[in-house]
């Protein structure tokens, strides 16, 4: 009975209460509770930051290991989620630096991506054509995000995929909200400049009779002078043709 009470109290517990138990009593059930509540979003963040599912999985585990390691340094008046996102994001940055030093390119569609593709394929296969197209576009997006500088990728992932408020992001990154906004603006501008031509080209290839309006819009929009031109090198242009090779 006591166990049931304990479990139900775990269920209604806030993250901060659970973290308090972990902090003061090394309560492993409270820790498992936090893990179950947060492993999905943290795993997504890490996978999106590194562009790699397996690496994301590893980083997720490292994040929770770090949380337990640093449990004593969690401030009781802080928000658990803010602290957790910060730890995960910093680990992602560290990992990306390591990758850069080793000179690996996470852009390469490796076997990990193939396995993810297989998994999706195994799960549901309604309309192969549409799915194939969507996967190709997904791969374009993955690559485009990886081309962005990390600080822009970070804010985009937190705001768009994880739906965090701008204020929360500024707390996680410990920067003013105005800086978050300008990073998001810069990130969106760069992303648009990478993705727009690629998607236009794809659509043109898939449906040559349909003229695209986006290119006109782009021409009219003009480019702000302070942004360096980082449009993809020509060698990368054809990549999406061969990325999905199930």
């Amino acid at each position, binding site marked *: 009975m006591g166990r049931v009470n304990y479990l139900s109290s775990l269920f209604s517990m806030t993250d901060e209460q659970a973290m308090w138990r972990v902090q003061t009593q090394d309560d492993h059930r409270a820790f498992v509770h936090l893990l179950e509540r947060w*492993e*999905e979003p943290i*795993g*997504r963040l890490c*996978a*999106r930051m590194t562009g790699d*599912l397996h690496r*994301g*999985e590893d980083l997720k585990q490292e994040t929770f290991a770090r949380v337990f390691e640093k449990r004593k340094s969690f401030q009781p008046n802080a928000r658990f989620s803010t602290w957790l996102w910060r730890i995960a994001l910093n680990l992602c940055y560290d990992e990306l630096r390591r990758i850069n030093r080793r000179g690996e390119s996470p852009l390469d569609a490796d*076997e990990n991506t*193939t*396995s*993810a593709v*297989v*998994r*999706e394929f*195994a*799960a549901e296969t309604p309309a192969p054509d549409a799915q194939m197209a*969507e996967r190709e*576009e*997904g*791969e*374009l*997006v*993955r690559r485009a*995000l990886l081309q962005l500088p990390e600080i822009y990728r970070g804010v*985009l992932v937190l*705001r*768009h*995929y994880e739906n965090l*408020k*701008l204020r929360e992001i500024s707390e996680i990154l410990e920067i003013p909200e*105005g800086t*978050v*906004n*300008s990073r*998001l*603006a*810069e990130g*969106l*501008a760069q*992303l*648009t400049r990478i*993705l*727009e031509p690629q*998607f236009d080209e794809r659509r043109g290839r898939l449906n040559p009779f349909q003229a695209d309006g*986006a290119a006109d*819009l*782009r021409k*009219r*929009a*003009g480019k*702000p002078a302070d942004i360096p031109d980082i449009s993809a090198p020509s060698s990368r242009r054809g990549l999406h043709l061969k990325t999905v090779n*199930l």
Partner: protein
Amino acid sequence: MNHPKREEWVPYLFGEATPQTRDKLTEHLQNCPDCAAEIAGWRQSLDKLDRWKLPRMRARSAQGPPPLLKWGVAAALLLGAGVGLGRWSAPAVDSNALRTRIEASVKSSLARELQRQFNANLQNALRTAGGQITNEFRTQLNSALAGVVDASAVETQRQLGELVQAFNRAREEDRQITFSWIEQIQKQHAADYLSLRTDLETVASLTDEEIRRARQSLNRLAANKSNSEP
């Protein structure tokens, strides 16, 4: 026209702008094709971001079939589907090629799953083996320690005994030395006493002689005086 700064569009785009700002920016968009084009591009980019889907990465929980089984089932289903499709749709579809492709990828992921499973098992086994080894080591260590403690107790006893004996011996020696000293001192005392006594006796006899002589001279003096006075 006075264009808003780029970062001002961000809260607007994500639905976090205050109502006044929102109205102001909406009005600007209606009148400014440049900004409208740029913001439309951003919106499209945000839509495109959703094309990158991640598979659900729920960690394998304790319940539910183990991943290997799941993959086995998926592989069987896929193979079955592939073969069925190939048979059914006759010559147009190259079922063999399809199957080999699917087989290859399924095999590779199966191999990976197997590897992971194997690793997990190995780690478990290592952990339990590690536990056993630790226990064994602990008991051995305990018994060894107990032996050492016993041995050291015996040794301590023996050494203590020796110490006591040595101590007693030393005390005995001490006592003897003290006795001899005391004896010596007593002898000395006796000798001193004797010599003192003879000295005293000499002094006494000398004094006696002196007194007698003094008395004689006194008597002589008295006789002389009475002779001279009539």
